[in-house]
């Protein structure tokens, strides 16, 4: 809710430029969920441990529960809602469906973003790279094995589409 202390900032959110009003120290997580209506970004702990609130902020994975709204100023932000193109899922999302990478789904938006981020910077990761890239994203359901499979499958799909 905008109040007297709120500021108006402009950012690019999922490819669209827009202005948002909030207190500069409001959590980006709350602004995304409440002001921008993007509830795909989840809160699991509110203290930077679980990664359920992960977004891509200027091309880097960030915990939006620890990010003040002020950091959104002129920033490029991608949330889970900005990963698919229309009805076409991203290769990472398709691979999660194929390999069983999502169970309850609450960690999934954050983990999909972490995987997208990894594959953009490291197109051919080893399993160890995958494990390291996901170390900040907790999943209580899967034991991570199907998630590792999903990320490696996504990597194969992306390589095939590039070839």
């Amino acid at each position, binding site marked *: *809710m905008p109040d007297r202390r709120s500021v108006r900032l402009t950012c690019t959110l999922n490819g669209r430029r827009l202005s948002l009003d909030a207190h500069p120290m409001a959590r980006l997580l709350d602004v995304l*969920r*409440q002001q921008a209506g*993007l*509830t*795909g*970004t*989840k*809160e*699991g*702990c*509110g*203290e930077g*441990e*679980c990664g*359920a609130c992960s977004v891509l902020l200027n091309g880097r994975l960030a915990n939006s529960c620890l990010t003040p709204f002020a950091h959104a100023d002129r920033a490029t932000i991608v*949330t*889970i*809602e900005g*990963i*698919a193109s229309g009805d076409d*899922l991203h290769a990472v*999302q398709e691979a*999660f*469906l*194929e*390999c*069983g*990478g*999502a*169970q*309850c*789904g*609450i*960690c*999934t*938006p954050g983990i*999909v973003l972490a995987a997208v981020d990894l594959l953009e910077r490291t197109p051919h990761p080893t399993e160890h790279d*995958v*494990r*390291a890239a*996901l*170390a900040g*994203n*907790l*999943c*209580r*359901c*899967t*034991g*991570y*094995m*199907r*998630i*590792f499979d999903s990320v490696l499958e996504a990597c194969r799909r992306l390589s095939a589409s590039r070839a």
Partner: protein
Amino acid sequence: MEAPQIGRSVHRKEGRAKVTGQALYVDDVAPAGLLHGVTVRSPTARGIIKGIHFHPTVDWDEFTIVTAADIPGVNRVKLILDDQPYLASDVVNHPEEPVLLIAHRDRARAEDARRRVTIDIEPLPAVFTIDDALARREIIWGEDNTFKRYRVNKGDVDAALAAAEIVVEGEYETGAQEQLYIEPNGMLAIADRAHGVTVWGSMQCPYYIHTALAALFGIPAQRIRVVQMETGGGFGGKEEYPSIIAGHTALLAWKSGRPVKMIYGRVEDMASTTKRHPSRTRHRTAVDRDGRLRAMDIDFIIDGGAYCTLSPVVLSRGTIHAAGPYSCPNVRVTGRAVATSAPPHGAFRGFGAPQSIFALERHMDRVAAAAGLSPEEFRRRNFISSGETLAVGQTIREPVNMPALLDRALALSHYREKRERFARENARGGKSRKGIGLASFMHGAGFTGSGEVHLRSLITVEVSREGAVRVLAASTEIGQGTNTIFSQIAADALGIDCDDIEVARPDTLDVPNSGPTVASRTCMVVGKLVETAARGIRHTLVDSGYLSVLYDREHFRAACERYVDAFGALRATSQYQPPSGVTWDDEQYVGDAYGTYAWAVYVAEVTVDLTTWETRVDDFVAVQEVGKVINPTLATGQIEGGVAQGIGWALYEDVVWREGRMANAQMTNYIMPTSMDLPSIRVYFEEVPYPNGPAGAKGIGELPMDGAAPAIFNAVADATGAHPTHLPLTPERLMSAMETIGA
């Protein structure tokens, strides 16, 4: 006819909504006029409430405030003994016990107000350990601090122990474990006298909440509606506690006349809601020179916390599983659930069985050593086989082949080769030691004893004129795959495609009571009802002459249209019937404790760092027989997830208690496994169809929680020569276990 769907890794039904962020969890909805609810809790373990003070700097008129005095019906959570209040009124019995509720339209203001209420409590002596509960210096519950006792008796244990050549004793302890679903608990409620009570939320058991709310508000059940939102994990943690949160949220909504949402923060969720029961198990085991079990005397105690809640049934499952998959002529198991001044412990995957199986399987390695046998050879000599009888008096009728599971697990893990190699390498010294260990176990599927008979679960399958099929059940999708496997089961029974099946959202307005989503019962018990009802529909269509024996999707649709036009609605309901020959005596506590069991052998390989005393699991092999596997990807994910929780329980997850309160109620200092901590978990299924399960399937969800911890402890013992007995095996505990052997 469509190709069979069962046995294929059909994609998760709601998977697309989950990978795109479109799936709606309770915190993702916010109706107009919403208030945010918070709970004011007891700061003290036990005492008399003397007064409640509201800080004068707050304008309390802006807030909705609910105390016990506002409860329209009964201030007791309906469960087993109904001993737990929704809101404490005169006494508190554990830290974090709810006393008062506050709501405000601004969540931050509500949070702030919570801190400006002081509850004055005159402390009473409290009880914090199983030993103190048993000593009865302070009676905090009932006559003797005991919620429930069970005794299983087979043969003459005392005589067999007296005559035994070798007797091995041991004592084992397990700590509490937090479920740590990544979505914290939450509910949304709309309630008033005119419309009754509706709640939406994160839950496993809509009808538990439904029953609880009817008693809390004292209104007819038809005026209560409970709707499950997408649920971000449960593991038992959303079995019974959500009834309290639903009640609290609805009380605030009832009083304010506005929608109210209550979302727990992580700290509140960890500190206040249920955890796995801590336990202590003592074993006295007699074995002969051939390594055959002669007697097992087992004393199994769980700490239930301050109220009874589900402890009797947790105790029951733990007691029945305490003697494991072995054949022994003389067995006595004494089970007790005792009261302490901690928040009530509750359901968590495995439900008492992981605790008693941990003790047994660690102890079996000790007995093997005393008998001069390897762990695997000792177990092989004592495995139960078909036709033999478990301690509780259940004769195993289905084929069971534990030696085959053992052989497969040993081969896949290269157990023998590694055991020898690690022994050689460890003897050379160095800064670390490696070891390999195993556990063999079983897990009963469905409610214990006569539970399923009492539940009388119901499901409905209905088909529209256009041939759209809906499965109506209260069984919740909490990540384990309910939606998908029900679709597969219904699709095969109807000879159509999974995509043509919809599994309705659990909403008590629409769905019949198929029982709680617990106890590895959803696939085996409820899935069987889905299969039966769907087959009934197919037979109805065939018998009516509208459908030939062989048909495709179009024929099916045309048949539905003709049937509906001629007869009206096309639906079938099926209700649980116990399989013939299955009997249980509640009074004597003997009989067929479960319809069937899943069987397993797990192997863990570890490295122990002798400088830091950290244990790392390097490889994990999980071999199990769970009947027919409905969906290999989902089933594998269930096993992997359960093993991961078992590894966490064994090594990392340490609930630190201070005066009955969890001192480390944060993800920062309560450590669950991350992607960096786990080995590759290798999962293998033997498929032996179970005649009473859908397409031959058994229950699967809890089984993997049982085996990881004892296999890891046995591997650490192999690596170090220590005898670790207390879980979790933190570096400090391992160091002290090493000191006792003088290493």
